[in-house]
């Protein structure tokens, strides 16, 4: 217990997260992606479509990073610090207990944030990009929509209010993302039962990316699958997963991919009659139609 409550050196903590979050691309993600490419080749599944899809994924990632900067993520960290200084409960000391609880809270916030991105029209506008690939490999993890970073930041603000250091919160959010990156693969089957029961795994996350009807809006988890089990959104992988969205985009053009959520939403708005119905489309589930009411 003493080790868990011992004050940690902040520079060390930053170093650990740097290795886990930033450097992991070199020592796990890229090597694993290469294994996946070899696997595709070996199974004679390698195609131009996979290569073009992977390139589009990388470009959407670049565009995503650019947009987040343009929107002023720097401002967001300022807001975090302002909240931390003025309206947070206390300032928690950086200990192992604080870090573990912060990761779990970031993971919990991610669950609801992710669920919201699926179940609210304006959320799906950006998150559909991530789901639009018909493939499932490490590169898909980098396929982001324009506003994918906005919602998580709003959801993690309460964590800062609870007394967690804003930078630690950002590190933990990034860690939840990096953990998930590793789940975007078809190369790993089901893991041993205790792990599948507690953690989000490649199998659970394949279900999340499935366009099969029973897999829609399931397994929102980041690190722990138990959130889905608690909140009624868990679905095990039984039927072979068909990846993608229910209406495929059939394009590897990065611009089409990146903005298809917006263009589709704009089309939908055009066809919706009445101003209040148009407004409702922003907050109602993506498959909502005014005639539903």
């Amino acid at each position, binding site marked *: 217990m*003493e080790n*868990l*409550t*011992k*004050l940690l050196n902040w520079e060390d903590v930053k170093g650990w997260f740097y290795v886990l979050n930033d450097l992991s691309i070199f020592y796990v993600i890229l090597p694993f992606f290469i294994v996946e490419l070899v696997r595709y080749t070996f199974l004679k599944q390698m195609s131009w479509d996979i290569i073009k899809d992977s390139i589009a994924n990388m470009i959407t990632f670049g565009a995503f990073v650019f947009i987040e900067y343009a929107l002023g993520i720097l401002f967001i960290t300022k807001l975090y610090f302002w909240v931390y200084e003025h309206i947070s*409960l*206390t300032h*928690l*000391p950086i*200990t192992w*207990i*604080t870090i573990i*609880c*912060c990761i*779990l*809270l970031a993971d*919990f916030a991610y669950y*609801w944030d992710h669920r919201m991105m699926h179940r609210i029209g304006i959320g799906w506008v950006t998150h559909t990009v991530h789901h639009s690939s018909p493939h499932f490999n490490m590169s898909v993890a980098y396929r982001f929509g324009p506003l994918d970073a906005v919602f998580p930041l709003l959801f993690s603000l*309460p*964590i800062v209010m*609870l*007394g*967690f250091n804003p930078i630690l919160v950002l590190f933990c959010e990034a860690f939840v993302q990096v953990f998930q990156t590793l789940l975007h693969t078809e190369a790993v089957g089901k893991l041993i039962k205790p792990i599948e029961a507690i953690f989000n795994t490649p199998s659970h996350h394949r279900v999340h990316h499935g366009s099969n009807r029973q897999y829609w809006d399931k397994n929102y988890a980041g690190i722990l699958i138990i959130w889905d089990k*608690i*909140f*009624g959104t868990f679905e095990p992988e039984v039927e072979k997963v068909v990846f993608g969205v229910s209406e495929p985009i059939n394009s590897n053009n990065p611009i089409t991919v990146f903005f298809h959520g917006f263009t589709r939403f704009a089309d939908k708005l055009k066809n919706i009659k009445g101003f209040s119905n148009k407004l409702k489309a922003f907050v109602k589930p993506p498959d909502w139609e005014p005639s539903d009411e």
Partner: protein
Amino acid sequence: MTGVKYFIISFFIVGTLAGIPHYFAKDTTTETEILNPYENLEGKWSATFKSTFFKGIIHYKFNKENNSFYITRVIEENGTDYRDNSLSLELKEYNGTSGKGIYHYQDEKVKEKIKCEVTFKSPNKLKVIYNYKGYPITETWTKLKQ
């Protein structure tokens, strides 16, 4: 109804996950305070006396084992320089900035205990305050370069 149920469960989860580090935060702060508040006293200190009882300089060295300062050297005003172990300052409590202790004085004839207060003014200044035979005395100790 499920909405309310999920909200209550979420509230409980957030409360637990945020509550645990807050609960243990108390341990952390006290632990860091106790970690070693005496650390800033370590080393050698020099005190200058101009009282009627003694005129000169006394060098002390802090002993970590029993939180006491012991005399390493006494230099009288006339230049006489000798070792002495008649005087020591034992700290009974100290939090890193202030504390209480006892001056022990002992020679062949007398054995005295004088209560005193110690304040850490800066990394090289220490104030020791006590009453001796009705006189309030303030000693200013300066840190000696090792």
